[in-house]
């Protein structure tokens, strides 16, 4: 189990790094899916099979399909690729990396100081999760449904706008 964990961790990290450094969106997207799959494995290792399945189905499946559609709709040509490549100069990475390194160092330091007690592997299946979801978290579920509805309406509204019309509104009401 531990080996599986380490291997998938390494895969997740590597895939993410590769995703970050791609110039073409589709390539990056593929690496992202790999990263998500690796995390799904880790979920399984941690004894959360339900969530692992959801990660596969929803994240790596549905959401990423959405991305693919958008990338296709955008139809970014060679022009963009060249521009992206120009922007991937090392100097662009230094500042963010330093900041991120500080954050990570702090995180690890706190983790080391806090001392996490070891825990036995116990699988928590969909039953417990479902009971919990529709028990104490009922209101949360309702709120989430409303959020999703909001997202739906918002996306529909933005997508249905006619481009020239929007431009006019922007001009008059900046």
């Amino acid at each position, binding site marked *: 189990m531990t080996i599986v964990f380490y291997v998938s961790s390494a895969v997740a990290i590597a895939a993410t790094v590769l995703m970050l450094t791609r110039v073409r969106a589709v390539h990056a997207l593929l690496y992202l899916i790999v990263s998500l799959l690796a995390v799904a494995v880790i979920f399984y290792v941690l004894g959360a099979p339900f969530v692992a399945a959801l990660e596969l189905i929803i994240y790596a499946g549905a959401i990423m399909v959405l991305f693919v559609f958008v990338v296709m709709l955008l139809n970014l040509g060679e022009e963009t690729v060249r521009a992206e490549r120009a922007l991937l100069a090392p100097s662009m990475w230094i500042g963010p990396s330093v900041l991120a390194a500080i954050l990570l160092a*702090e995180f690890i330091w706190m983790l080391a100081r806090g001392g996490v007690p070891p825990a036995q592997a116990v699988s928590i299946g969909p039953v417990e999760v479902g009971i919990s979801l529709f028990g104490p978290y009922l209101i949360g579920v309702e709120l989430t449904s409303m959020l999703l509805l909001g997202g739906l309406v918002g996306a529909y509204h933005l997508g249905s706008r006619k481009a020239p019309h929007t431009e006019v509104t922007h001009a008059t009401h900046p």
Partner: protein
Amino acid sequence: MLDLLWLVPAIPFASAFVLAVFGPRMRSKAVAVLGAGAIAVPAVLMLLIAAAFVSAPPAGGAYTQVLWTWIGVGSFRPAIAFYLDALSLVMVVVVTFVSFLIHVYSTEFMRGDEGYSRFFAYMNLFVASMVTLLLADNLLLLYLGWEGVGLCSYLLIGFWYQDPVNGLAGRKAFIVTRVGDTAMAVGLFLLFHSLGTLRIQDLLHTASDQWQIGSPYAVAAAALLLGGAVGKSAQLPLQTWLPDAMAGPTPTSALIHAATMVTAGVYLIARTHGLYELAPQVQLAVAVTGAATLLMAGCSALTQNDIKRVLAYSTISQIGYMFFALGVGAWGAAIFHFMTHAFFKALLFLAAGVVIEALHHEHNIFRMGGLRKELPAAFWTFLIGGCALAGLPLITAGYYSKDLILWSAANSTAGTAGLWVAGIAGVVLTSLYTFRLIFVVFFGQPATPVSHRPGPAMMIPAFVLAFLSITAGFATTPFAAFMAKALPELHEGGMGMSEVINSTVAGLAFLAGLLVAWYAYLSNPALGRAAATSRVGRVLHRFWFSDWGMDWFYDRLFVWPVVWSAKANKADIVDSIYTGLTRLAALCHRYFSLTETGRLRWYAAWIAGGSAFAVAIAMFL
């Protein structure tokens, strides 16, 4: 009879109120009748009260009438109450009587002025305040009258308000006298704090019980009251307002700035004489102030061109004599001189008013001349007044009162030879400038044609005053006896000079002044001019003409700094603290808004940096 005393201030006050509110709609005849009548009634009433007082003196030689308790806080209970004793009786009688004469004079002098009713309203208010001042039973009520007369003085100096110069003169008068009043107010606080009362009689008793002679409290209190007196009576160093006050109508100058209000300081010191006896140093200061003032003002009077300014300086000088008398402990003599001065100085002003009006508001004496024949009535009255002022021996009232003061200076334990010599020098000066004035105005060649002749309403008061200027002097002995009921007598001692020598020297001094004036201004005018245009003469002339440069000095020391700082600080420097804060906020706004670049990554970096910082704080704290 005595219980009608409250009517004496009340009637003029009521009349002033009526004139102020309804005056503009009244006919000028009605205004004149009401204005003068409102003074005639108290004058007559006061004579009756005086008769009653003399014939049947009240117990203790004083009558007190309490109207109501004015303020009542704890033990501080000053009342609106009047106190009538020999001192206030004489003062009130003289004031109401002279006021009445001047009011009659004004009915003609002011005729046709657009502010006719306003003038009488102010004048009546003045009489009411003056009487309140004199009759006040406590120092707070006295202060009320004191400020009231100051106010009327201000209003009347600036009566012709359309000329800003008059307004400025009035303001100067009010402010300079108020400088003294401020000292006096602090004196009242001191007296109440240490003695627990402001009733004058209680005050004097308690003071003599509690304080030793020369105690610092007594000295401070007396000095502070002296400050008030000096301001009101135009003595050194606060005399500068009086010459400018001549901007007011002539009856005002006669009444307020010669006969009555300016002597309030004399009255105050006489009223509180007990304090000064406890503070011999301050009493000496009073004498020295008086002596210095009478000499300085006499010199200044010699150089003035404006007829009213000459008289103004002579008023300062004569009040200097009164202070001089108070300072040497000749309380009665001071009051006697007040009385004779009220008569002859009012007379001089009234006659001067006739001259000024006759010459179409000409004030410069060198554009007058030869008026002896044109205006004989004015000439004779002015001459009588002038002789009384200069002290023509044996005949005039001024001689007797001044003689008494000089004799007191020589024969008082508080007097010194130096003071006496200064007094005699003052007589020479007085006689010199008085006859300079008379010779220049009434003798020589006519310079301006006479355009207007006075009517009876103006001349009759002058005649009455001329009569009094002569006869009042013969009442010296009974007057002194009457005064002795209210004021302590002179502590005789000092040089012990005999009365004959003193009178002879005073008479000779008068004669010396007269002769010099005659020689320099009438017989040999070229000599006078030569003296004035010589180098020393020019310097002295300028120096004296500008009142010893005091105005110049005060302007630079007090007036300009205050005015400048007020002007410079118009926008309030403190506010710049707050406008500075708003500026700082605006500046911060400008610089912080620079961080709003609109770049998403920039914001994200801030969020990341911020969380790193927050976590660091959580870690290390």
